[in-house]
């Protein structure tokens, strides 16, 4: 006897859509999504733009304050007799400042300190006769008389070793009366800021 298997009948399924139809749904979905994203982006641009407008308004207020301060300063200067927007006046002021700075620069040099430093470096048997500093460069020219050449050498060594004089350079030397040595030395003096 043959076995008969009895099953439930399978439900009937069918799809009339073609492959193109599926693709069209995807494309249309993408386009809707792009349109939505575009709308969101447009809204964001409007929002940013509005924010920027607020910032611009705040900056304009700030700008007005700064411009008022600038106008006050200009007016102050004009009341002092100086026109800040006149290039000739500005050049004139620059020259006045430079001239004054040059004068004050000379005061940066202290003769008292130089004499102190020389006193501690000049050995016995050496006598300085002329001290001539260039106040701008700090180069000092010393002229004097030493009893012997050895004393002159001692002076030059002492100047170098003092730490206050550098580039000690013997410019001239000659034997004078009673075998004394007349000399001229050039050196650079290291100033100490007062």
């Amino acid at each position, binding site marked *: 006897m043959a076995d008969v298997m009895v099953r439930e009948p399978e439900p009937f399924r069918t799809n009339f859509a073609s492959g193109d139809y599926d693709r069209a749904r995807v494309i249309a979905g993408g386009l809707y999504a792009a349109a939505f994203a575009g709308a969101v982006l*447009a809204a964001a641009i409007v929002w940013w733009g509005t924010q920027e407008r607020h910032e611009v308004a705040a900056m304009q207020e700030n700008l007005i304050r700064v*411009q008022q301060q600038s106008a006050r300063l200009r007016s102050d200067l004009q009341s002092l007799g100086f026109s800040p927007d006149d290039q000739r006046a500005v050049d004139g002021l620059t020259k006045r400042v430079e001239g*004054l700075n040059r004068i004050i620069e000379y005061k940066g040099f202290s003769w008292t300190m130089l004499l102190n430093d020389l006193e501690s470096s000049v050995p016995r048997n050496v006598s300085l006769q*002329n*001290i001539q500093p260039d106040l701008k460069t700090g180069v000092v020219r010393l002229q004097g008389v030493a009893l012997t050449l050895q004393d002159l050498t001692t002076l030059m060594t002492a100047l170098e070793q003092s730490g206050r004089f550098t580039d000690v350079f013997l410019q001239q030397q000659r034997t004078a009366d009673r075998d004394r040595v007349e000399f001229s030395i050039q050196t650079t003096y290291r100033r100490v800021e007062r």
Partner: protein
Amino acid sequence: MSRGLIHRYGLAAGLVVIALLLNLIAYAVVWAPSRAAQNEAESQWRTAREEIGRYKAYRQAYQEVGEITARALPKTKLPDMVTTLASLAKKRGLAIPGVTYQSERIESSDFQKVGLAFSISGPYADVRRFLNDLERSSVFVAIESLSLTRAAKESAHIEVQLRVAAYLRNVS
């Protein structure tokens, strides 16, 4: 074919085009003008700040130059300068027998430089104190050079030839 495309995507594509147009309008009408206005305001603000910095520097320089220059002796009071020198020397027991003057041109509309050459003699310590007093007496007096010689053989006194620059205020 095209009718089919329009039928399938027409609405979606239309919405995309509208969204694009909205973006363009938002950019052109709202964002770009705001951005330009902000850039303009920033640029003006920077200019104004620079101006303020410059004006402040001018004001400070102008006032300081005026104040410092006013401290200098006017040109007409050159004899006062000599009196000051003499009194400084006297304070240290020294004397200035005579002074020679030489007017020098300098690059300054505010000042006139006068070179004063004179000699003093005395003990080295007193001469040094005098030099110190002279240096501290005024911003507008500077010792330019000095020459030392022994006043006499076997003497403790030295003679100093001094050249001093005095900057006197031009009187307008």
